[in-house]
Structure formats: structure tokens, C-alpha cells
């Protein structure tokens, strides 16, 4: 199965990965090889098979709605690239 450089550009945008035309060509050839491997799945008929998303077939556990974690905002923000007044700073998104 062949993945084109144009598809790579689209996938990379979905995945928020900056790419240029040279990289897109490089990744297109590698991902095409990987998808050839993936295509081997089609050797096997999976009609009427229940999909398995997880090794544990069980419902997620619930817990009492109580506060269990202390406020650690200062500790968590100390390792952020940019903060101000307790907020995380990002480039302006609303004009």
C-alpha cells in the first residue's frame, strides 16, 4: 500500500507535527512499507469477531466523589515553559 507525500502532509497536520516536502517524501516511503506489513492483517477473516480493546473485559472502577489530591498548582507550574499569575501562557488565540 502506498502512502503519498501529500497524505503525509495531511496526517502530520492532524498530528500537529511540522513537516516540509523533503520530510514528507521520506516519511511517505517509510510509512508505505509499514502499511504493507499492516496489510497482512487481511489474510485473516474477522467476520463476526467481537473487537477487543483491552485485556480486561471489565467496567471501569468508580470511586467516592471526594477530594483526594492536594492543590499542587505551584509545583506543577514551576516546570511549565511559560506561566503568569497562575496561568499557562500560550500565543494569543483570540484577537
Amino acid at each position, binding site marked *: 500500500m502506498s502512502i503519498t507525500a501529500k497524505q503525509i502532509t495531511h496526517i502530520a497536520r492532524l498530528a*500537529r507535527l511540522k513537516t516540509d516536502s523533503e520530510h514528507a517524501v521520506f516519511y511517505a516511503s517509510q*510509512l508505505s512499507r*509499514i502499511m504493507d506489513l499492516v496489510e*497482512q492483517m*487481511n489474510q*485473516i477473516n474477522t467476520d463476526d469477531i467481537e473487537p477487543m480493546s483491552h485485556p480486561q473485559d471489565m467496567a471501569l472502577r468508580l470511586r467516592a466523589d471526594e477530594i483526594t489530591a492536594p492543590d499542587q498548582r505551584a509545583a506543577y507550574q514551576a516546570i*511549565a*515553559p511559560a506561566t503568569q499569575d497562575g496561568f499557562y501562557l500560550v500565543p494569543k*488565540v483570540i484577537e
Partner: protein
Amino acid sequence: MMYEKTLSEHGAALRNRKYSSIELTQHYLDRIDRAAELNAFITVTHELALEQARHADRKLKNNQGTALTGIPVAHKDLFCTKGVLTTCGSKILGNFVSPYDATVVDKLNSQGMVSLGKTNMDEFAMGSSTETSYYGPVKNPWNPARVPGGSSGGSAAAVTAGLVPVATATDTGGSIRQPAAFCGLTGIKPSYGRVSRYGMVAFASSLDQAGVLARNAGDAALVLQSMSGFDPRDSTSLQLEIADYPGQLNDSISGKIIGLPKEFFGNGVDGDVADAIDQSIRQLQSMGARTVEVELPNSAVGIPCYYVIAPAEASSNLSRFDGVRYGFRAAGYADLNDMYEKTRAKGFGPEVQRRIMIGTYVLSSGYYDAYYLKAQKLRRMIADDFSRAFEQCDLIAGPTTPTTAFVFGEKNDDPVAMYLNDIFTNAANLAGLPAISIPAGFDRQKLPIGLHLIGKYLDESTILNVAHQFQNQTDWHLQTPVEIGQWRHD
């Protein structure tokens, strides 16, 4: 030699004051410094280790020590360690000092173990050679021209070279067992849900499981027992009593039935590896185990199935690395999207970007059913194959890997060739089963060979018991590479 002792021997010596934890810790720290060429560690915490050792010595002096108090350990660099760098082998976490400890770290700390530092690994645990680490590849102590396996290559090389007596590791598709095989160690991945994933940087959440790289099954049993148990902070952690792994090591294996899947003994397995595995099976038979041929008919599609599910989960998990809350942020961006894209493109290495893109692709509109849903159906069939096989046997055996350790660069240009390393290991992750690799011989180049034992769900005890009994009758696990600095490079 001090570094060849078992954890029980270290524990007894510490409790009897033959040597102190400070002396033991300093011994290993010196070895780490002398073996810097292996690149097994990303961070060595000299001072913190000595402080923990002093604390352990106080406990031991007051007879408050446990079996593990004062014994050094190293953590794979994807376990969060409070106040200590946790990079996950990536540039994007190159400055990440975790504000909290992973449950595994917390549990071993509370046993009084002394952490020597954080071991090198494939970036985000994506790799089978430790060559994708941003911090440089790890060398195999048996032959530094060869890879130690991966992704837990730093933990494996460190234990093999006697830089630490035991190390934590994680296994998503074989990342404990394949390096154990390549380095001649005992490496166990327990059943999914046994060990808390809290504080482990997530790769593929339905496959990831923490375990141990050790010199023998007894050591692995001791540490695994201390690591495992229910954790309310991990929603997939099982609410079960902790099994007595060390207590069951000495059971007789007479009458145990070992399933041999014909799919694990076919073409593609190197001749020396096949011979060593055959010989190991005969050894187990001579100890009273019986063998039966079983079938795992869908194992051929395990690799393609895995390389859809793991990247799909990874693409979702790794979306958290955005340059906003922690870690690296690229400089010079026009707007928010540009900041995300530049941060991620510069922060992630090529293998991680490949897997994020594969995962994004198989989950994207129009492809979900053909790839992701198809892989989930195959996952069910692979798990059902194991259930059927285990109706006939107590455990399953085969080679851990088709070959011994390969040379650097050999599979770097071809991701598919690298992925085939997991051919025998990743089915246990897909099905959530416990599995162990133990030393089973050497090839003609004196490179270790691993015997792979897969157990029933939640039955780590049987594979540890069989591994321990095998090690009572063989000496493969006692062999060590030449001393630090005398390595051959061919």
C-alpha cells in the same frame, strides 16, 4: 565478586552488617562511573543514592529493614521520580523534573531500596535496540559493537555489567524480555493490571506493563512482589491479593505441562537459537515436565496487529506533549498551532514521529474500520488462541527472539525489520499475559540466547517457579561478560 551476589545474599549481608548500604551503594556507583562507555544511564543520582543508603543503614541498625532495604536499584527513565529528571529518552522531556513519584518508585522506596539513577531507553519506549534514545545508544556489555535490545536497554546493560543488582523496566511489546534475551538476564513482564502504571509515561495504555530485569528468577520474584499490588490511582490496577512469588519458587515442576506452539519453532529462527531452545526444553523434560504441541494459528498476524494498536494508542497518549504545561517548547513560532507543530517536530525523534503518524492514520476518518477495528478483532482471536492452548498446558515455551543481539545500525534504516524483533513477544502484551525470558545458552559468537515462558493470566508464579528450577539445574544465568573496560568490539 560483590556485584555477582543475589539480592537475598545482599539482603542477608546487610542485615548481618557484613557491609553497609553505604559501602554497597558506593561500590555500584563506582562501577557506573567506570562503565560510562556503555551509556546505560541518563541520570546518575550519586548524592541522593548515598543519602538513601544512609537512611537504609539506620533502619537496618534498628532491625527495621525488609528483604530489600539498603539494596540498590535503577529505574527505567520513564518512571516519574520526584525531584529527579525523567526524560523518557526524549528531547521533549529533556528538562522534565517530575513533581511526584510513580507508584513503582514509591513502593520500592518504601521497602528501603536505594535508587542509583535513571536508565537509558528507546525514546518513549519505541524501539528494540535503544538506538532511538535522544541521549545516544546503549552498548551491550557482552559485545559493545552490538545493541542491548530495547526498549529497556539501559536497565538491561546496567544489570548485565553489574552496575546495579536489579532494575525496573517496562514492556509494551517485548521491551523487558527482548533485552533480557540479548543481555543474558531474567526479565519478567507480569499480567496486565498487576503493577500500577501510575507515574509511568504512557506509550500504549492497553499494552504497557512494568516489570523487572534481574540476574535470576529469585531476584525477579522478590522485586516483582514488592512492585505489584492494587493502586487506586490506576484505573486498570487489579484488586487482588499479592501472590507469594518467592514462596512458590521451590515447588517441583514435575508433571507441569509445557505447550510448544509449532508457530514458534519454524523458519526464521537462527540455528543456534533453535538448538539452545530445544536443549532447554529437554532439560525441563528431564526435570519431570511434560510437553505437548499446541497451536497459536493467528500468531503470524501478531506483528501487524500490534503495529496498528500500539501506534494508535501512542498517537493519542503523546498528544499531551504540546509545549504548554511541561517539557520542551520550540523557539520562534507564529501562533498556537505553529508552536505545537514546531515543538513536537523538534522534540520527538523520527521513530516516535513515524508511530504518531501511523497511529493518526489508522484512526483517521475512513480508515478506522479497515485498520484499527480490524486489529482489535485480530487481538481477540490471538487472545482466544492462548485460552484454547492453555486448556492443554500450564505454560507455553519458545525462543524469546529469532536471533541474538545484532550490530548497531543493522536495522536502523528499515523500521519493518526492527519491528520483527517482537515477533514472539508481543502476543503476550496483546493478550495481557505474564511472560519471562531467561538465559538458555549462547550462540557461537558468545552472545546470550533467551528462553521465553508465557503463563496463564495472573499466573506469574508458574513461570517464575519453572524459571527458578531451570536455573537450579543450569548455569547460563551465572555467566557474566568480561569486566568493565576489557570489552571486545567486534
